[in-house]
């Protein structure tokens, strides 16, 4: 078994005005080497919080994250155990994640030197890494502002590789980039996963990119995973109404000028999540029991997992097309 990362019943809480808010409310995930897991959901669903908790930037209230056999502890000011150097994160904003006053070379070398490499050797290695991510050799002596957004994101990726990452948590790594840089950076990430056999959690609100590059997809809503399966399963026959709504909302540049379907309402406040199924107030297929009983996360016959009262454990997924819509009262 190639499992490199597992998340078990993870709960992450924020303290807001003395009340505990569960941003991540019990999540299970598995990631293998060389696998790309797409994590999608609307803003506020807790996907970034989950990403930060996986690398230990945030502490877990309950549950645990196991990386390569050992539980991840919350980061402190002290030095992190050697073992976790290979668990790295790439952030959305490459402007905020690089120090504007230090040269690129110095920032990439940091990871190598802290890892015990001698400075002179580290310089040569940094040059290799920058070449790996497709930057010119003179990039070492330049400052972050001298690069475009796409190039900065490459630098951020090079820094993660400097620590010889075996798991990358990439939080919206291409969202802030232009269309042509998006394709370049996305290709770079896919390439690294394949060549270095890295496992990657690719966090994004954009299902169309997730569909292209991921092996498996997990759909998150208000702190919980509502459906997880292979890209084909999720895309061709979504079993959860929320997954279906997300897919229907994507606009297509096919020139057919079809209007995407909107999902009325907003993600509810996690301070007071709805009773029963958390999606029921916005769900076009909601039934009376959905407001009362929280659906269990069950495994269907095709091996995907979903939390919806319409789907039954061990059975084939019920197609959502066949279910008549309940008119809004």
């Amino acid at each position, binding site marked *: 078994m190639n499992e490199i990362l597992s998340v078990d019943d993870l709960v992450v809480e924020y303290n807001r005005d003395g009340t505990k808010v569960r941003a991540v409310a019990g999540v299970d995930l598995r990631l293998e080497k060389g696998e790309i897991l797409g994590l999608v959901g*609307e*803003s506020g669903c807790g996907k970034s919080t989950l990403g930060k908790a996986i690398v230990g930037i945030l502490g877990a209230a309950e549950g645990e994250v196991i990386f390569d056999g050992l539980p991840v502890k919350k980061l402190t000011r002290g030095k992190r155990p050697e073992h976790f150097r290979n668990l790295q994160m790439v952030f959305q904003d490459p402007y905020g994640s690089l120090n504007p006053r230090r040269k690129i070379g110095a920032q990439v070398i940091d990871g190598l030197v802290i890892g015990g490499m001698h400075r002179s050797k580290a310089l040569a290695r940094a040059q290799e890494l920058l070449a790996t991510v497709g930057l010119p050799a003179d990039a070492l002596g330049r400052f972050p502002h001298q690069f475009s957004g796409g190039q900065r994101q490459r630098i951020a990726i090079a820094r993660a590789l400097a620590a010889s990452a075996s798991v990358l948590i990439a939080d919206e790594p291409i969202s802030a980039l232009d269309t*042509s840089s*998006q394709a370049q950076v996305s290709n770079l990430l896919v390439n690294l996963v394949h060549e270095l056999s890295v496992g990657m959690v690719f966090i994004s609100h954009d299902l169309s990119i997730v569909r292209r590059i991921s092996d498996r997809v997990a759909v998150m809503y208000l702190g919980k995973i509502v459906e997880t399966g292979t890209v084909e399963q999720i895309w061709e026959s979504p079993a959860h109404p929320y997954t279906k709504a997300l897919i229907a909302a994507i606009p297509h*540049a096919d020139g057919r000028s079809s*209007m*995407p379907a909107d999902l009325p309402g907003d993600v509810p406040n996690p301070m007071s999540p709805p009773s029963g199924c958390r999606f029921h107030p916005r769900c076009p297929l909601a039934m009376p029991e959905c407001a009362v009983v929280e659906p269990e996360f069950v495994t269907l016959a095709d091996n995907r997992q979903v939390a919806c009262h319409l789907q039954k454990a061990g059975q084939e997924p019920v197609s959502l097309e066949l279910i008549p819509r309940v008119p809004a009262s």
Partner: protein
Amino acid sequence: MTLLNVSDLTVTLATSTGDADAVRNLSFSLDGGEILGIAGESGSGKTMTALSIMGLLPYKGKASGSINFDGKEVLGSSKKKYQHMRGKEISMIFQDPMTSLHPMLTVQTQLTEHMRYHDKMSKSAARESALKLLDTVKIPDPASALRAHPSQFSGGMRQRIAIAMALACEPKLLIADEPTTALDVTVQAGILRLLHQIRDERNLSIMIITHDLGVLSSLTDKILIMYAGSEVESGPARELLSNPRHPYSQGLIAALPGASREGKFLTSIDGMPPELGNFPSGCAFHPRCGFAEDRCSVPPIDATVVSKGHRIYCPVNPFAHDRVEQS
């Protein structure tokens, strides 16, 4: 009927290395009730085009050429004239509704301000009108929304409020600069529907600026694609998206994740867009173009008509030949 006619617009900005043209000889027109989409990557000059129509260019920015709106020349108008026009005849919404709304003022104050300024409405009449507007943009419970502050709304709701503000004085033209970029895809779909509906109901012209070709596909009647301050291709939306002819447009469309189903790698355009002040001569795309020939770097680059209303600026035009012969 033509509402907006921009011809030969050039926008010059002051940079640390001297003046540079951010928009170069741009010409387009927009009819009443039409939706035009302007697409391009950051730095392509699409926002500067919009700001020059609004008279809101940054400090030391200069525009030349002609912008004719509703039969009048707008370019070079006095500050006062622009002030009468902005919000009244042309209004604009921006990417981030949190920064375009004042955080300390109630929705009512912000929504009624320009109705009272432009249309000299009484406070109570403006309030009535504001309630109707909030209903138009589908804000639930408009009466209590008027008393609330922007922070009490979600991103999508804020953008709806910004749209209500823009519609308050019944403008003829709405400029929307990346109106859905900061929103979730589910919320974005709602805003796109709303804009479409408003156009149908009010015969409003909309100019939408975005880098998202999917958004353009659902909303627009025609599309203009910009690169390094110049037009590379324009035409009817369906025609252009299903049959792009300029190598840059073809590259942009091919780079979309939904473009094909083969494998995990996306088609990408090598290199990066040029920086302001460093635009290559002739066709600015030629250093990145797979079809470039020597003549591509020699200005001027003339337009080639592909079909009715569809033109490209490409001297090589590798794909258009067969097409032109057919038509």
